[in-house]
């Protein structure tokens, strides 16, 4: 199986392949079509010629020419072969290209699958020395962003389309008239691209007086800035979490929302992995205000309001740092956290005991002083070069958005160039950015969407050019990954909407040559990787430049920066009211992924909310403010919450309350990235805009907020999991490390119920038929590795053509995810322990779903898979009722073929694009009733190897059957007249499931259980192996490895057992009803 392709004989390069299509995309007809069709709807789009044209450009694939009005026995369908076959192209054989997805400070190296010319699946590049092929949900979802029909697609001046050439001419003119650059300002996003740095330097040389600003709404660069200060040399930290035995996270969600989370997860999971009872594992302490994934995975967690986090860190510093003249200041600072000494003391002790193998991490929300303090502590712990390395990094531009806003308002900026970002939406509210931006005479804005920052008729900039930004899958470029490795960004498809890249715009403004992005990237590479064409090709093929990782710099700590910062640090003001934490959303980031349906529907890893953000409050605070009343809607996962008004410094927002166990009291959590005013069809109406409360002083923490209940409880929140307790059932089994060492097979003993019979009354026919199977597939999920990042969910959605269903449907528990992450709380509701468990089809050998299906739609194959035949399914839904794991999902509506706001409308009485839906459907049943642009784009992202399910059909995890079958076919094609057709891990022919491939923690292991040497067989042999609900005798092929916690007995919150484990223990133990403990809503609600 070649989900990761074998090395190509000839490196594939994008432009060669797509060059022919460049020209087509440049034709006036195409531009005209794009400009006319996409925003306006698709009246003329029915013309088969233009449609054919489009598809040929996009996918160069077969297409159906629709229903001919023939009297024939079946509709005439046509095949359009190439007039001239592109090189190295075989229709139906996917190709794989290496590229990278840029992030703020780094990039994720990727391998992208291209099915007949259209990118369909993103995987991490496993060959990277600092990677394992794992990715994060954002990277997995990026491929959907490529086909977002609401992306910017016009070169527009003051909101009117002017055509590409006019825009490029304007840029050239700008470069000619810029003079020395005075009055010219650039506002960029953070980037690790060497090419951009090169162009920037060149432009700065040419326009020395130009202003440069780099703005991120959520700035993850603080670690680099403070490290550079502390070491007096431009360096950035690189955390080797796998080397650490004791980790303390100080409001640092390194598993969730920090930079390079998937890399952190990989290393963290390595440090937590257990294979036998001799193994040791790391211990994680977390101090945080919100309940984050890091807190979920922590062995000890201290919840503190934001104002106490720095004091707690200071207190810790006092106990670790050698006495110095800073102690006085630290003591002042830390006084507020005195109450938590019992927690901080043993934690500090543990860190010290493990000096050299311990690490303290500070999160992006903390002030620089806290970061410097953490650096000092790490120095004191001897962490440097053991658990943290410092890599040389280029100095970055000071953001100083406030300065730019002031300059704009003061009229010092005539021309403002905004490349990426969306400051009009997410800039601090006190800057009044939209007004400031309008003060510039000319604004050039490159953006992926026509969003808030795009031309706004209500404000009066003299001229604003809005340029469509190409997606990274359409772009040439380069980036550096977290460890500094250079990775290419190469296009897999020509810009669908004719977008251009940041590099092009910069080159044009700078009047630089070459100005094509390919040449720019190529030239940059020359300076790094040498002039050789072969090196370039190898670089493109491999997806990274070997040996380009930044070496560890030898650094010398200078405590003076810390002293300075501490002196500046204000002691926590004792304001009344509530404190606020603004945080980067796990899905929307700072709003940039707002129109991505996969991400909108991906449940938040902790709250499990979809399509919304909320005003997060701790249960006690909600109770105190009398807004904890929660009423369930008539439907399952819909919650009607109090809408509250949060006021901070005379600015206020309204949003629904979400009671979040484990939050710090008197603290409000507000996720950024929602409530967008100008966004696409997907993101419209999702959540509220928390940016409106942010000011330059209070970017991440704020105090003195007032919360007022509006009394309105009509707002609905949709969550994917409405019950939070495990009810003492041994679903997720866990033990502490000590118990595990005493009894490694503890998980198998946690059975609440004996099976009624020891063995079935009759032999399983699978025992006979599986002799025909060459393999026996199985899955093992290590709960000790899984951190709950949810990358698997999006990967599965992408691989298996799983539709999104919209907020209303999620509220009715009709979401379609084949793999979900169940999150359970245990213990006191104010400060619970939480666990997360991937749940997917367990592929039971005695599958209860199968025997109740009246039409043989779900059955077993010879290799032990529980297979679902969609085309045979009539939709009795009995299988789902009888599935104890409830992993089957039903297509209640035609999610793939109807717009989500039309679901409830009968096609008999509804129109789309001005056409009667029934007639549209009759004309082209595949297309159904999506608006033309959505239909044309949505089908491009589909995996051609998986059926797209229609309404009325049950679906579920197939263990990526399509990958298995393709691997088997590949083996057979290769075998020809030999009998060697069995896949084996030794030969690297066993496929990976999409979830497995995406998992940075390597928690999911799939393989052939009949091969004793396979990884899955070994995993299943571990003593921690257990089966969920084994007493039902369903004999799942999917097993779990129990979770092990590693608490410190000296800690005040130490518990001998994780809680609660078995029903007996639950019933006899100290824990009262979990319902009352974990349901903040009170007893009546659920």
């Amino acid at each position, binding site marked *: 199986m070649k989900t990761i392709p074998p090395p190509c004989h000839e490196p594939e390069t994008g432009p060669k392949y797509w060059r022919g299509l460049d020209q087509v995309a440049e034709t006036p007809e195409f531009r005209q079509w794009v400009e006319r069709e996409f925003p306006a709807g698709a009246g003329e789009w029915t013309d088969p010629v233009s449609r054919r044209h489009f598809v040929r450009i996009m996918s160069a694939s077969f297409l159906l020419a629709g229903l001919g009005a023939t009297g024939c026995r079946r509709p005439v369908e046509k095949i359009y072969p190439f007039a001239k076959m592109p090189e190295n192209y075989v229709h139906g054989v996917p190709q794989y290209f290496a590229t990278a997805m840029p992030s703020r400070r780094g990039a994720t190296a990727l391998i992208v699958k291209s099915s007949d010319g259209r990118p369909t699946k993103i995987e991490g590049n496993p060959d990277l020395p600092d990677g394992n092929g794992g990715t994060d949900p954002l990277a997995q979802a990026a491929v959907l962003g490529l086909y977002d029909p609401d992306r910017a697609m016009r070169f527009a001046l003051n909101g009117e389309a002017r055509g590409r050439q006019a825009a490029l001419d304007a840029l050239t003119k700008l470069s000619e008239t810029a003079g020395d650059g005075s009055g010219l300002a650039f506002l960029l996003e953070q980037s690790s691209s060497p090419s951009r740095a090169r162009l920037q330097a060149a432009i700065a040389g040419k326009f020395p007086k130009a202003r440069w600003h780099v703005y991120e709404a959520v700035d993850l660069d603080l670690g680099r800035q403070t490290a550079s200060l502390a070491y007096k040399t431009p360096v950035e930290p690189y955390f080797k979490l796998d080397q650490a035995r004791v980790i303390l996270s100080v409001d640092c969600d390194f598993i969730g929302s920090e930079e390079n989370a998937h890399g952190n997860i990989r290393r963290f999971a390595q440090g937590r992995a257990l294979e036998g009872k001799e193994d040791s594992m790391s211990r994680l302490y977390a101090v945080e205000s919100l309940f984050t994934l890091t807190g979920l995975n922590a062995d000890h967690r201290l919840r503190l309001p934001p104002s106490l986090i720095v004091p707690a860190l200071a207190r810790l510093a006092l106990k670790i740092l050698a006495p110095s003249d800073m102690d006085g200041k630290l003591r002042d600072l830390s006084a507020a956290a005195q109450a938590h000494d019992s927690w901080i003391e043993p934690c500090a002790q543990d860190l010290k005991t493990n000096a050299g193998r311990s690490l303290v991490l500070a999160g992006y929300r903390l002030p620089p002083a806290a970061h410097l303090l953490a650096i000092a502590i790490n120095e004191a712990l001897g962490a440097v070069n053991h658990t943290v390395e410092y890599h040389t990094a280029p100095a970055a531009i000071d953001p100083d958005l406030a300065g730019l806003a002031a300059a704009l308002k003061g009229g010092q900026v005539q021309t403002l160039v905004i490349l990426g970002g969306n400051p009009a939406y997410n800039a601090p509210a006190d800057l009044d950015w939209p007004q400031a931006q309008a003060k510039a005479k000319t604004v050039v804005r490159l953006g992926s969407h026509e969003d808030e920052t795009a031309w706004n008729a209500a404000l009066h900039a003299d001229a604003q050019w809005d340029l469509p930004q190409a997606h990274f899958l359409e772009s040439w470029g380069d980036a550096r990954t977290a460890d500094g490795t250079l990775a290419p960004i190469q296009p897999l498809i020509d810009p669908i909407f004719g977008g251009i890249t940041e590099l092009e715009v910069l080159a044009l403004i700078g009047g630089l040559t070459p100005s094509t992005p390919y040449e720019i990237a190529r030239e940059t590479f020359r300076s790094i990787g040498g002039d050789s064409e072969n090196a370039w090709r190898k670089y493109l093929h491999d997806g990274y430049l070997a040996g380009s990782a930044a070496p560890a710099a030898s650094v010398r700590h200078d405590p003076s920066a810390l002293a300075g910062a501490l002196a500046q640090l204000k002691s926590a003001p004792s304001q009344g009211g509530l404190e606020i934490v603004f945080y980067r959303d796990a899905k929307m980031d700072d709003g940039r992924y707002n129109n991505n349906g996969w991400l909108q529907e991906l449940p938040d890893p902790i709250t499990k909310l979809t399509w919304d953000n909320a005003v997060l409050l701790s249960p006690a605070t909600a109770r105190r403010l009398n807004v904890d009343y929660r009423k369930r809607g008539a439907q399952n996962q819909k919650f009607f919450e109090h809408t509250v008004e949060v006021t901070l410094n005379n600015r206020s927002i309204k949003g629904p309350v979400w009671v979040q166990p484990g939050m710090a009291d008197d603290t409000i959590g507000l996720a950024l990235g929602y409530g967008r005013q100008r966004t696409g069809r997907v993101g419209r109406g999702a959540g509220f805009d928390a940016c409106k409360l942010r000011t330059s002083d209070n970017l991440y923490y704020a105090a003195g907020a007032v919360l007022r209940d509006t009394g309105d409880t009509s707002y609905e929140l949709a969550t994917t999991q409405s019950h939070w307790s495990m009810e003492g059932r041994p679903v997720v089994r866990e033990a502490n490390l000590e118990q595990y060492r005493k009894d490694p097979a503890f998980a198998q003993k946690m059975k609440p119920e004996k099976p009624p019979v020891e063995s079935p009354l009759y032999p399983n*026919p699978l025992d006979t*038929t599986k002799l025909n199977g060459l393999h026996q597939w199985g899955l093992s999920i290590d709960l000790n590795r899984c951190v709950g990042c949810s990358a698997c969910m999006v990967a599965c959605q992408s691989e298996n053509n799983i539709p999104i269903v919209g907020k209303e449907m999620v509220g009715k528990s009709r979401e379609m995810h084949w793999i979900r992450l169940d999150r359970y709380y245990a213990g006191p509701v104010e400060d619970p322990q939480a666990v997360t468990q991937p749940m997917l089809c367990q592929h039971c050998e005695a599958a209860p779903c199968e*025997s109740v*299906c009246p039409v043989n739609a779900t059955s*077993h194959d010879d290799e032990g898979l529980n297979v679902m035949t969609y085309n045979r399914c009539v939709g009795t839904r009995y299988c789902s009722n009888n599935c104890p794991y409830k992993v089957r999902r039903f297509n209640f509506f035609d999610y793939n073929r109807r717009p989500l706001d039309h679901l409830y409308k009968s096609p008999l009485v509804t129109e789309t694009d001005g056409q009667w839906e029934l007639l549209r459907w009759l004309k082209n049943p595949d297309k159904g009733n999506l608006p033309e642009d959505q239909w044309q784009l949505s089908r491009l992202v589909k995996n051609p190897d998986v059926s797209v399910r229609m309404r009325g059909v049950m679906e579920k995890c197939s263990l990526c059957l399509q990958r298995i079958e393709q691997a088997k076919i590949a083996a057979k094609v290769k075998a020809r007249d030999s009998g060697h057709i069995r896949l084996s891990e030794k030969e690297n022919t066993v496929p990976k499931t999409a979830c497995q491939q995406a998992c940075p923690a390597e928690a999911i292991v799939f393989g052939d259980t009949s091969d004793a040497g396979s990884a899955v067989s070994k995993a299943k042999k571990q003593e921690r192996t257990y089966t969920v609900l084994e007493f039902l005798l369903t004999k799942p092929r999917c097993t779990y490895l129990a979770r092990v916690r590693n608490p410190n007995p000296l800690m005040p919150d130490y518990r001998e057992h994780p809680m609660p484990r078995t029903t007996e223990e639950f019933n006899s133990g100290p824990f009262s009803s979990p319902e009352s403990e974990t349901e903040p809503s009170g007893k009546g609600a659920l």
Partner: protein
Amino acid sequence: MPASYAILAEYETPAAVLHAAGKVRDAGYRHWDVFTPFPVHGMDGAMGIRNSKVGWFSFIGGCTGYTTGMLMIWFMNAYDYRIVIGGKPMFSPFAAFPPSYELTILFGAFGALLGMLFLNRLPRLHHPLLKNRRFAMATHDRFFVVIETSDPQYSEIETRQLLESLGSRHIEMVEE
């Protein structure tokens, strides 16, 4: 004038017709019948009708149904296309029993109804008696003894006398 089909004698009570029927039987008539608005208790004995054969039709139908069910299920699930389902045996008489059982009843019921219709030679929409105005009372509250003219014993005068002697107040000939 059309040929006569039978002679029809009307009685007013079940007892009277029961009595008459016994006598007609004793007289040795063969092509004759009694028509009543409801089945009169003891009439079968009085007329000398043997036990109905409908039961056999039903029995054969039931056996066919059960066999069909079992064979069909075995063929479909265990012979023609063997698909592994839920770890259950390809064919199990227990799982096959409910449908087979239902088919037994279905076919048995059809056997009974169709057997009854067949034995009664129904439907027969046209019948000489149904043209007779007086005979319409046979479904109301009158009881008739009808002796067909085709009966070897039939004689226009003697038969009429016999029927009259048995208490009939109204006797008439029925046209073909």
